[in-house]
Each structure stands twice: as structure tokens, then as C-alpha cells.
């Protein structure tokens, strides 16, 4: 198999002094090379922790108990050593966060931070090479005056600009997997749409696989090839985007889709906090590729 990512029966729980809280109850998820996969669910459904497990960050927290296998390029992230996991981050996989402006360090210039990222792949890269590659990467994400941006601090740039920088940084080391955790949710809608379009173009050009984490069905429909719907730590429905949107079968997916506000003005639809229906078994559309 040429899967970039293959998650099998992944469980996660947090143990505190008094109790154990189960967060993920056996997740299966697969991403092929160059495939754009979305993970959709409400807040607290376990989307973001899944991304942090793939990055190998959560395994380093003492309160987290992770079981199951997370095969990345054939290697199980869960059984790698701390050092081996760190070696994958920023090189073979990278991540884009919600708010670009607060995800960049406020006291270093963009150029400094970009250089640090490039050095993850090539520790001994020369100053001149670095500069050249930074400029090229910034031009690729359609940043005007890239030289000025490199010597700027994040607070001097707009949110949309910072998001473009984040995208350029995330793809600079040619990762095989990009994790995008609700990218650009902090931006206004039109800028978010612009940067998502750009990201879509970039990952298609670079043939980078993406795990796109979102609660926004409209965005997911535009972006992803395949969708997983997650509810309370369980995958409840999955399938190719077109098939899933044409025929949402699981009650939770249907409720989620009904919850998208309509422009016709029928008021805000409601998703019940909890419903027995939502515990219905998993639905898979079509054949998994």
C-alpha cells in the first residue's frame, strides 16, 4: 500500500488523578499520497487531538494514553522514540493552524522563522541559498514584495499575508502530509476563501496529502476529495465528497448538514446536543480507494 497515513483502531484517553476520560474510541482513517481528506465534526469531537497524535505531540504528554496504530509512510508513530517523532515533524509532515497571526512568533522576523523551518530539512543550508528559497516560496504563494515581507514582523502584516506565509512555510520542506487544523478560521470569510483556494492549488501542485480538519461543511465540500465525519470520538460516516454530500446517511451527518444556515432565512437550525440516533453504526460510501 502507498498510503501516506493509515490509522487503525486509534484510541485516546486522558487520565487525571481521579478519573479517565475517553476521547477517541477506535478511529480508522486512511490518506493516500496526494489525497485531500477532510475530518469534519463539532467542537470537542476529537478532530484536533487526532492531528496532534499524528504529529506525535500528544504522545509526549504524560496524561494522554494513546493506543492503536498510526502508520505514517509505513512507520508507526506510536512506537517511534521521541527523537524519531521530532525528526518527522517539520520535514515529512507539517501543520497549519487556525490563527496565522498568533502562530508566528511575534519577536522574530518572517525571514528568521522561515530560515529556521528550512534548516529543519537542511541544517547546513547557506545564507544565500536560504534567502533564495524563501523568496521563491513567497512568490509561489503570490506575496507581493517578498523581500520586504521577509524582513517584517508578523504584526506588520495582515492576517491574509501571514496565512500565505504559513502555507509557504508548511510546504517549503516538501512534506508528504500536511495537517490543516481549521486553517484561517480566525480570518474574515473572503480572505479565508482566497487562502484556501491558494492552499488547494499549492498542495495539488506539490502533490501533498492533506488532512483538513474543519467544522465548516461548505469549505470541506470545496476542498476535500474524501470526507470523514467524526462524532464524540467515533467516525460515523465516510466516503468520497460528492457521494457523501449527495446522500448523507448517518443521522449525525444529516443533522450537521441541516445545521448549515440557509440564505432563505428560516432562522437558525438546531442540532440536538445529543440524540440516540447519533449512535447509529458507521456508514461508508462506495469503495475506499
Amino acid at each position, binding site marked *: 500500500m502507498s498510503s501516506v497515513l493509515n490509522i487503525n483502531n486509534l484510541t485516546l484517553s486522558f487520565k487525571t488523578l481521579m478519573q479517565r476520560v475517553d476521547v477517541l474510541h477506535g478511529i480508522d482513517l486512511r490518506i493516500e499520497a496526494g489525497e485531500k481528506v477532510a475530518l469534519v465534526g463539532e467542537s470537542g469531537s476529537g478532530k484536533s487531538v487526532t492531528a496532534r497524535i499524528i504529529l506525535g505531540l500528544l504522545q509526549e504528554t504524560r496524561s494522554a494514553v494513546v493506543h492503536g496504530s498510526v502508520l505514517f509512510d509505513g512507520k508507526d508513530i506510536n512506537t517511534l522514540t521521541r527523537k524519531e517523532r*521530532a525528526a518527522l515533524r517539520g520535514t515529512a509532515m507539517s*501543520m497549519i493552524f487556525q490563527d496565522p497571526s498568533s502562530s*508566528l512568533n511575534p519577536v522574530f522576523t518572517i525571514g528568521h522563522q522561515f530560515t*529556521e523551518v528550512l534548516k*529543519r530539512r537542511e541544517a547546513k543550508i547557506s545564507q544565500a541559498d536560504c534567502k533564495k528559497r524563501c523568496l521563491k516560496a513567497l512568490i509561489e504563494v503570490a506575496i507581493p514584495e517578498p523581500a520586504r515581507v521577509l524582513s517584517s514582523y508578523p504584526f*506588520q502584516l495582515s492576517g491574509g499575508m501571514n496565512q500565505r506565509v504559513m502555507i509557504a512555510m508548511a510546504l517549503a520542506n516538501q512534506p508528504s502530509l500536511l495537517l490543516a487544523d481549521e486553517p484561517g478560521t480566525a480570518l474574515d470569510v473572503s480572505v479565508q476563501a482566497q487562502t484556501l483556494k491558494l492552499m488547494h492549488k499549492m498542495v495539488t501542485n506539490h502533490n501533498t496529502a492533506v488532512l483538513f480538519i474543519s467544522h465548516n461543511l461548505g469549505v470541506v465540500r470545496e476542498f476535500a476529495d474524501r470526507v470523514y465525519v467524526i462524532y464524540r470520538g467515533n467516525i460515523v460516516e465516510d466516503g468520497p465528497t460528492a457521494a457523501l454530500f449527495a446522500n448523507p446517511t448517518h443521522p449525525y451527518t444529516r443533522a450537521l448538514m441541516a445545521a448549515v444556515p440557509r440564505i432563505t432565512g428560516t432562522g437558525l437550525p438546531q442540532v440536538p446536543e445529543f440524540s440516540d440516533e447519533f449512535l447509529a453504526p458507521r456508514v461508508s460510501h462506495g469503495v475506499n480507494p
Partner: protein
Amino acid sequence: MASVIGLLFRRLLISFIVLIGVSMLIFAIARVIPGDPARIALGPNAKAEQIEQLRAEMHLDESLPVQYAQFLSDLSRGDLGTSLYTNRPVTTDIVQFLPATLELVFLAGLIMVLVGLPLGILAARYQGRWPDHLVRILALLTVSAPGFVWAVILMLLFAFYLPLFPIAGRIADIHEVQRITGFLIIDTLLAGNVAAFGSAIHHIILPAVALSLSGIGQAARLTRANMVETYKKPYIEMAHAYGFFPNRIARSYAFKPSLIPSLTIIGLDFAAMLGNAFLVEAVFAWPGLSRYGVAVILRKDLNAIMGTVLIIALTFLIVNIIVDLLIAFLNPRIRYSTREAS
């Protein structure tokens, strides 16, 4: 660069106004507290005419505003008047005693920064684990007692029971060092006298450590607290997500943004050492400004009190200006906003 010069200029202007205010306040307070300086200076057996004559010489028979104006015009000529206690010009006294105090305070400040900040980084890096607990206990311990208490404890432990360090003084008597700057550490080096330099270092360690201890605790606690906040920021998670080494994240990505809010307080702590130094100097018989300051206050030596307070206020202000400039240098937001403003 222009913005930093503008900032410096504004701070200097404000400092000048503060100095004027301090001088007025101390001028008034020193004259309002009971006791006639002329009578104290001349002793109980002096005749009434003699006292009257001295009062006239010191302009004490005139109104406060006139006296203050007289003081200012003398000050503008660099004349702080004569000390009744040493019978020498106050400026001469200050030039003689200040370097010893500054030497002590600078070294203590250096120890505070060089030990306190790394301890804070260490605690934040291993937050909730044993290095963190250890640093927090030590910090609490050191800030719980003022410098002079530590001075007595250190002196007992390391100069008396375990005689590793000399018990008092600035340098062993056998060394003759020509006075150039007044800073013994520098003067002995300039003279190329290694033995004397060693002796000066040997003498200054205990008082400097005693003076710096509570500052170390304060700096460590502050750095830790600010860094723990910084660790919650998305850019730290991003640094982890890009696989940077945890030690590097602590030293660079988390420390630098946290240093800016810590720095103001550390600067104030540093300046406050000048006050604490008075008591530490008393314990170690350190021939600095403190013995002079205490003596002149008790004798109501007006000119000397004014001179001592002014020089301390001036040092305080200079330290604050340096801290402000450092912050402007470290924080791009300030650096650039001042540029836009000017």
C-alpha cells in the same frame, strides 16, 4: 535608530523633571524634621552666637524657596556644599564612597540576571516536573528574607564556621592599589596586580551574593511565570509542530517574548538593590555610600543628605532608562511604533 534616539531624549527629559521633584521633596523634608543642624554640628557646648553665625553661613535663616534657589545655583556649578560630618565638599565624599557601592550593586545585578533568568527558563521548560519544583522552592526561600538577613547567614556559614571568604572589607590590607576609577576590580586590573585583583574578587563575592539572592528568586519566579504564559501561545505549539528541539524552544522561542515583560521588573529590582546595599554594606563593613549615608542622616548633615539622595535617584533613573532602551531594542512592536509616532 532615529526612534531609539527619540525615545532616549523623551526619557532624559522626564528623568530631569523627576530629579527636580525629588530634590525639592528631600530639600523640604530634610529641613522640616526636628533638630537644628547647626546645633548638632557644633555640639552641646557651643555658644548661641556661634550657632547663629553657622546658621547664617548655611543660609538657614532664610526662607525655604530662597534656600532652594541658592541650592540650585550651587548645584549648577557642580557644588553640593560642604559636609558638616567630614568637613569636605560633598562631591568629594560621594566620589570616594559611591564606586564601592556601585561595584557591589553591579556585581549583584549581574549575578541576579545570570543565575535568575536561566533558573526561570529551566523551571518553565520542565514545568510541573522536579526541576520546576526545586527552582520554585529555592526562589520562594530566597525572596522570603531580605538581603541583610542573607548577609548575616552567609557570613556565619562561609566566613565564620567555614572560613572560605573574608569576613569584612573590600581588599586585604597588604595591597596598595592606586585609585583610578574607584572600582577596585577595575583598578587592580589596570595596575596589572593579579594578587590584589584576586583579593578584591574574594572580598566582594559574599556581599554580592547576599545582595543578589532575593533578586535571583524574584527574577526566576517572574521569568518562569511569563514563560508559562508564553508556552500556551499558538506559536509555541507551532514550534513543536515543526519539530524544533524543546531546549531550543525554551531558550529562544519562549524566552525572548517572555523577557520583555520581565525586564521592567528586573530593572526595578536592580535599582532597589541600591537601597538594600545599605544594609548589606553595614553587615560586611563595606566602605561604600551606606555608612556615609547613615552617618549624615543621623547628624542631619543637610548638604550631604541632599547629595546622597540625589545620586541614588540619578542612578535609579539611569538604570530605568537603560531598561527602557533594552525593551525597545528587544520588542519590535515598540521599536516600530515609536518610529511611526515620531
